[in-house]
């Protein structure tokens, strides 16, 4: 069984600007692959290259076992794509939008009607089929866009920031739909900014300034040695006035890093200090109700750490120093 997506040493450049630098990873069939990275880091560019819209400078990409460079038309017929802005024809009704894409993908009349009823059952678009797409709310537009991208029954679907700018309920509903699709064997490649969405993916890739910094399951990424370096320990502190506690902690030499997370303080400390001793010390500062325990890093911690590390490397590279492992340290 070939991988749904396979990339080797993929480099995409526009003139002197390298948008994607020697990226290689694969996505397994039926997986929900989350692709993360700040704006402008090369996410959309990579998707366009995978669909054969941009010719890479070097390297290769295979989709569903087909080499994109040689079989671009076959690839397009078998994958679906939902763009950042829900690209619908606003003066056409929801149904006319679906019919148009059905025509583009060469569905027969029977296939089209069958697919439409399947998609209507899945997305609950039924009451809105005869409404102009431009009059639908954000969440419904997005369901319609998803329906259009799925009309031809693709086994691989690209979603470029599908949840940008829609309300939390619609966001949750969309993810429920994505899980349904995944359970029917559809491979999903999703870009997102939301950490909670990243946590729901089966695997995650993180791209920063054209470089792929990490790939793996969310748990694998959290266990990366760079994220919690040797000799350090992650702790979590709960209690009243976390802001004041944070300020005090940042003054301590044994605290490598500390940040505020709503009601708690997340910190990286020397491994010699276990949770109990930290708790005793903090209580000694007058925060009698503080409770400290060991904690695992969140995905956000992972990405923040990897990003800082990468920036430090780049900084050292510019200053002529060898790339040092400045992992997890205070900036």
């Amino acid at each position, binding site marked *: 069984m070939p991988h749904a997506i396979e990339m080797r040493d993929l480099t995409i450049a526009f003139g002197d600007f390298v948008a994607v630098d020697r990226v290689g990873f694969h996505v397994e069939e039926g997986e929900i692959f989350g692709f993360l990275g700040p704006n402008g880091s090369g996410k959309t560019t990579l998707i366009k290259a995978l669909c054969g819209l941009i010719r890479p400078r070097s390297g290769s990409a295979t989709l569903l076992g087909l080499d994109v460079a040689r079989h671009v038309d*076959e690839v397009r017929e078998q994958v679906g*794509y939902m763009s950042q802005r829900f690209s619908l*024809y606003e003066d*056409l009704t929801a149904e006319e939008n679906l019919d148009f894409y059905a025509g*583009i993908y*060469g569905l027969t009349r029977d296939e089209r009607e069958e697919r439409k009823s399947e998609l209507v059952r*899945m997305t609950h678009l039924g009451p809105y089929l005869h409404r102009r797409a431009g009059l639908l709310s954000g969440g419904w537009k997005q369901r319609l866009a998803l329906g259009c991208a799925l009309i031809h029954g693709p086994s691989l679907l*690209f979603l470029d920031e599908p949840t940008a700018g829609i309300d939390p309920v619609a966001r949750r509903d969309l993810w429920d739909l994505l899980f349904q699709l995944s359970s029917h064997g559809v491979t999903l490649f999703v870009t997102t900014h939301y950490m909670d969405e990243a946590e729901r993916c089966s695997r995650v890739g993180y791209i920063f300034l054209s470089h792929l910094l990490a790939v793996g399951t969310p748990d694998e990424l959290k266990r990366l040695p760079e994220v919690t370096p040797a000799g350090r320990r992650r702790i979590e502190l709960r209690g009243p006035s976390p802001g004041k506690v944070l300020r005090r902690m940042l003054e301590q030499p044994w605290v490598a890093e500390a940040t505020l997370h709503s009601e708690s303080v997340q910190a990286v400390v020397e491994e010699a200090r276990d949770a109990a001793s930290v708790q005793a010390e903090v209580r000694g500062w007058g925060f009698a109700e503080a409770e400290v325990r060991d904690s695992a890093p969140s995905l956000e911690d992972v990405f923040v750490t990897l990003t800082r590390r990468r920036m430090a490397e780049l900084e050292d590279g510019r200053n002529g120093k060898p790339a040092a492992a400045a992992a997890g340290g205070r900036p």
Partner: protein
Amino acid sequence: MIVHTPRQHRKTSFAGRAWAVLVKEVIHVRRDRGALFFTMFIPAVQLVMLGYAVDTNVRHVATVVFDQCRTQESRALIRRFETTTDFDVLREVHSEAEIEEAVVAGEARVGLVIPEDYSRRLLRGESTQFRLLVDGSESNVASQATQVGASIALRESLARLGNAEVLPVEVRPRVLFNPDLKSPRFFIPGLVAILIQAMTVSLTALAVVRELEKGTLEQLYMTPVRGLDLVVGKIIPYAGLAFFEMMFIVFLMVFLFGVPIHGSLLTLLLIAVPYITCLLALGLWISTRAKTQLAAMQMTFGTIIPSIFLSGYVFPRNTMPLVFQWLSCCVPATWMVSAARGVILRGAGWDSLWINALALSLIAAVLIVISVGRFRRTVG
């Protein structure tokens, strides 16, 4: 519950994809009633306005008179000017400076100056002169006034010599195809070609740029749709629209302005097919270069001036420098203006018009090939 069935690989066909695009475009056109009305309405309004307003025949040129002689003879000369429809004698002035003032002020375009010795020399049998000061800022007014002035002098001379109002030799021009020299007959047949140009080019130019602005083009590029599918699917519905518009303009020409079609209407319509295809393909090419609808409109208008001035619609092509004559061969309007004039005014048929049809078809083919090619290259 079956929510999604991934399918086996399905081959799509050119006909299927182009048809899907075509159906969608037809819905766009039907939904946008306002735009539809204006694209149909504006060329018709322009035709009516131009048809009534433009008269290239010069009449009633405002004239002032500086009569230094003030005799029976000089008054007879002034009367000759007064009795033509070409000149309107407004008033008398009392110096040449005053004539100039009147011309600069735009009050008069012609000043008639009769010298003091006009009658004296005339009666002595010597050659005498009067002067005509002509405003040169409008060339056809100037040339008409000079011409009519000269013929008045000629008549006056002959009358004095022979004492008769009968001219010994007279030219009787007969203007073929337009005996009454009505200017609508001259310019409306060519105008048919010019008027549908702006509207037709903008139809396809906007049809693609709108998709670019809305982001639907980006989505389309991710589907099996190819350049040719888009070009064909977008050209056919708008060709129908442009064709309808052209028939409407021809209808107005015949029934509102009474310009008869001497040749065959079918010939005219058949030659319009490659012409309209040229214009739509030009619009598609513009749409692959423009990033916004505004830019597309500006580029559309940029195509209009060359088609008015290089096509031979305003100035005859054979008086242009050779380079421009060649250049004008690449302008679709050149071939359509001459074909429209040929069919409508001269009753020309395929034996002389095949070259127009061939040229238009070639230009259309080249433009389509270029825009199909550009559709894939715009990506990235």
